[in-house]
């Protein structure tokens, strides 16, 4: 009974973790990409530099989502509270 409860709570927790972890970085990545496009439109000769910086910062933002994913994975596959 307790195990079933823990399993249900873990699945919900994993879903909430990934969902909310995707929310913030999604907004941030949209902002960053929009500003980069604006920058390229204003100054097309700087495209290479802008693209490099954009990719690097997108990967940093992506890693915040990944933290949520790691929490979700550890809740699903390595849960310390199940026997």
């Amino acid at each position, binding site marked *: 009974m307790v195990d079933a409860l823990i399993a249900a709570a873990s699945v919900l927790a994993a879903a909430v973790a990934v969902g909310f972890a995707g929310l913030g970085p999604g907004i941030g990545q949209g902002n960053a990409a929009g500003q980069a496009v604006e920058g390229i439109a204003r100054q097309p000769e700087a495209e290479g530099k802008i693209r490099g910086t954009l*990719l*690097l910062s997108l*990967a*940093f933002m*992506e*890693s915040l989502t*990944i*933290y949520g*994913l*790691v929490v979700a*994975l550890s809740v*699903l*596959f*390595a849960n310390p509270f199940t026997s």
Partner: protein
Amino acid sequence: MLSLLLSKIEVGSHLYINFSETLHLHGETIIVSSLVVAALSIFLSIITSNLKRIPSSLQSVIEIIYELVKSIAIIQMGPSYYSQFLPFIATIFLFVLGSNLSGALIPWKLIELSSGEFAAPTNDINTTACLAILTSISYFFAGLKIKGIGYFKRYIKPAVFFLPLNIVEDFTKPLSLNFRLFGNVVADELTVTVICSLVPLIIPLPIMMLGLFASSLQALIFATLSAAYIGEVIE
């Protein structure tokens, strides 16, 4: 036939090599990472054994990698100190790149194991934790070597009450490095596995390409961050 194409999702199961009650190794991680190290060393030593003024195609690949790592090191650490730490940054970059690509490019699923499966060594959190702790040790070493005992002034830098935050930062830096690499590699492999179990043909290919791109980018980011952490303490 169809069951051959589908693969199980395996997270957290390993091929254990037991030495005693408490000491055991993750066999598949050790095998694949030593293969990666051996392949990288042989590749690099063969190509760099006879360097030519007009580079062959393989030599130009090596030169591109060298220029990339050198530019990362110079940008993050400044032109006067970068050469001491260039070997470390290059080693980290090549190892992470090699192990990520080995997980993505070599069809390990064809080899059956009794438990666990062959995958990228960075798929195991112990490998990435080791790399992160190495980064941590190296920036402590860099700070103490270049600044001497004055290195500890960094902890009270903006004001004295920043001391606890600065100490916590020493722990969160390796933790975030660790989780970033591990999570990205596992996320790629999980996505590919889940999509393969839904549609085994053609549809997973773009996702695999994205995974290949993301895993190369992760190597670049790990190297950049290591260089940035070292550069932060020596400037």
